[in-house]
């Protein structure tokens, strides 16, 4: 007898529809799985057999062939356990065949028949919803998939429980409560650095990339960590986008669903696959895990040269496209990049108090590790110099606080949304235009750099609630590109 149970396999952040077809016939006993399945899927045989037996079902002493259609698509992961087991039950008459005409199933089986969560539950939920199907899956994932509007979820904690029929539908739970933004560093805890704090605000308001350059111990890392607290909460669409990436990477998506923007700070020993994604099967990298949030790269020039340059395309397009032998995978990567570096190898170039021991070719070589194309993409680059020790010793209260800065960021974003949708070029005043042209010529800025500079000027204008982009806004934006041309 034959039976079919719909399920899916992950390609990028999507669950592509897959049909599990089971055929049980007389003949030499066999449990075979065909249809480009990876090792984890092949191991499903032993889990399915044990799970069915320990849940009181019969595993047929017959020829059982399971086909995963479409056959040319590579299938991976343990989520096939449950649909394979259900297809065998239907094909042996232990469950009514028509049970799964409009229900797809996904989940891993324990040997005791328990149904466990798998990576990408959220993607499976979105896909089932898109196909107009109910989703049968682990009870443990019910609160996560509840974030998908209108999904009809049927939670099950063990395969023995479907004997009496499918569990009832649980539809959309209420929106996850907005979580408190948890910044581990408050701006008020950082003494001095008022320009850098201003830049953090601009970066947060406009989603601009930020490069902090300064000697060791000047506070670059603390500043970057404070950035988390400035970001506005995620919109419902962004929540789902960010949570999908977390989910397919096998991470807990609940923080994203609650509206917290991710902050990722990979170490500089990170590989290309670790940063932009890769592996078999492909998994999202740090830049995708930081989607809608902040990717912080400390000790920027210490990253491998190929690793750094691999950031260029994802930063520009907001998505990573991985081309592998098994196909093309796409992960979103809209991030605000915050990078921190020393100005030279010894770290003290330009420091008024300590002398730099690097020769000028060494300094040039150090800067060249980043390279023009990446500098171009850093909208704001500023120096973070050592602060007066008295500021630290006397614990003079900083005039800024994360709360106030966040309020300004939210106001700027709100103003940006509400002002007339005029292109930034059209909103330049005459004098602003002149200044921009002079500045761009003077520093021989690239086309991309000019475009990005305009974006920064627009954000600065939004922060002062100005519909026009004035000379002062362009001037300030130009000032934040000064370091790289020194």
């Amino acid at each position, binding site marked *: 007898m034959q039976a079919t149970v719909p399920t899916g396999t992950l390609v990028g952040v999507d669950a592509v529809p897959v049909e599990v077809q089971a055929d049980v*016939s*007389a*003949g*030499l*006993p*066999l*449990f075979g799985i065909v249809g480009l399945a990876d090792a984890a899927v092949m191991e499903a045989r032993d889990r399915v057999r044990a799970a069915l037996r320990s849940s009181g079902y019969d595993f047929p*002493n*017959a*020829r059982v062939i399971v086909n995963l259609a479409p056959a040319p698509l590579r299938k991976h992961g343990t989520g096939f356990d449950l649909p394979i087991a259900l297809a065998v039950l239907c094909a042996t008459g232990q469950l009514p065949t028509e049970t799964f005409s409009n229900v797809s199933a996904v989940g891993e089986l324990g040997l005791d028949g328990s149904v466990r969560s798998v990576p990408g539950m959220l993607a499976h939920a979105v896909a089932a919803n898109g196909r107009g199907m109910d989703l049968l899956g682990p009870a443990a994932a019910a609160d996560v998939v509840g974030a998908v509007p209108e999904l009809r979820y049927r939670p099950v904690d063990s395969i023995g429980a479907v004997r009496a029929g499918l569990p009832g539908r649980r539809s959309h739970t209420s929106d996850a409560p907005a979580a408190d933004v948890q910044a581990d560093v408050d701006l008020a805890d950082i003494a001095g650095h008022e320009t850098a704090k201003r830049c953090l605000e601009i970066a947060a308001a406009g989603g601009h990339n930020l490069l902090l350059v300064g000697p060791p111990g000047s506070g670059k890392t603390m500043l970057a960590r404070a950035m988390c607290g400035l970001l506005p909460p995620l919109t419902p669409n962004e929540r789902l986008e960010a949570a999908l990436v977390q989910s397919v990477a096998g991470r807990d998506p609940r923080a994203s669903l609650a509206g917290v923007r991710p902050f990722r700070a990979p170490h500089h020993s990170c590989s290309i696959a670790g940063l932009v994604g890769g592996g078999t099967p492909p998994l999202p990298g740090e830049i995708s895990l930081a989607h809608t949030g902040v990717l912080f790269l400390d000790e920027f020039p210490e990253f491998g040269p190929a690793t750094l340059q691999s950031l260029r395309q994802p930063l520009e397009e907001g998505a990573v496209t991985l081309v592998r032998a098994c196909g093309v995978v796409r992960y979103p990567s809209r991030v605000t990049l915050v990078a921190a570096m020393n100005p030279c190898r010894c770290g003290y170039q330009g420091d008024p108090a300590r002398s730099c021991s690097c020769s000028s070719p060494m300094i040039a070589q150090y800067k060249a590790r980043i390279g023009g194309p990446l500098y171009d993409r850093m909208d704001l680059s500023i120096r973070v110099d050592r602060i007066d020790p008295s500021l630290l010793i006397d614990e003079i209260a900083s005039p800024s606080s994360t709360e106030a800065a966040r309020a300004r960021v939210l106001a700027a974003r709100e103003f940006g949304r509400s002002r007339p949708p005029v292109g930034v070029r059209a909103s330049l005043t005459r004098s602003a235009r002149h200044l921009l042209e002079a500045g761009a010529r003077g520093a021989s800025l690239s086309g991309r750099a000019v475009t990005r500079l305009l974006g920064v000027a627009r954000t600065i204008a939004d922060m002062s609630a100005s519909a026009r982009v004035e000379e002062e806004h362009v001037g300030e934006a130009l000032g934040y590109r000064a370091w790289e041309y020194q």
Partner: protein
Amino acid sequence: MDRSTIGARGEDAAAGYLERCGMQVIDRNWRDGRGELDIVAIDGETLVICEVKTRASESKGTPEDAVSPAKQKRLVRLARSYMASAGIGSTNVRFDAITIRVLSDDRALLRHHRAAFEAE
């Protein structure tokens, strides 16, 4: 008692055991050019191919060890040619193994592994 006598006595014991279990032994020591099936029996609707392993000592491993993956493959191949030559088409088939550990002249330990393995 030499090895082949021990083996033959083991197979007799196994066949007797299967009969007592309600199965009908239809063939013993069926061979084609490539090997031998120890016992072929019928259990209800199911054709049972049974491999018997008898050991007097475990110095060369347990009798279960002797039903190795290579041996299983060989048995599956033999089962196919048996079914073809006997004109048995579509029926359920089960591969059993019976292992016998000889303890003394008149005592042995018999284990029946139902559905011990399947075609790969």
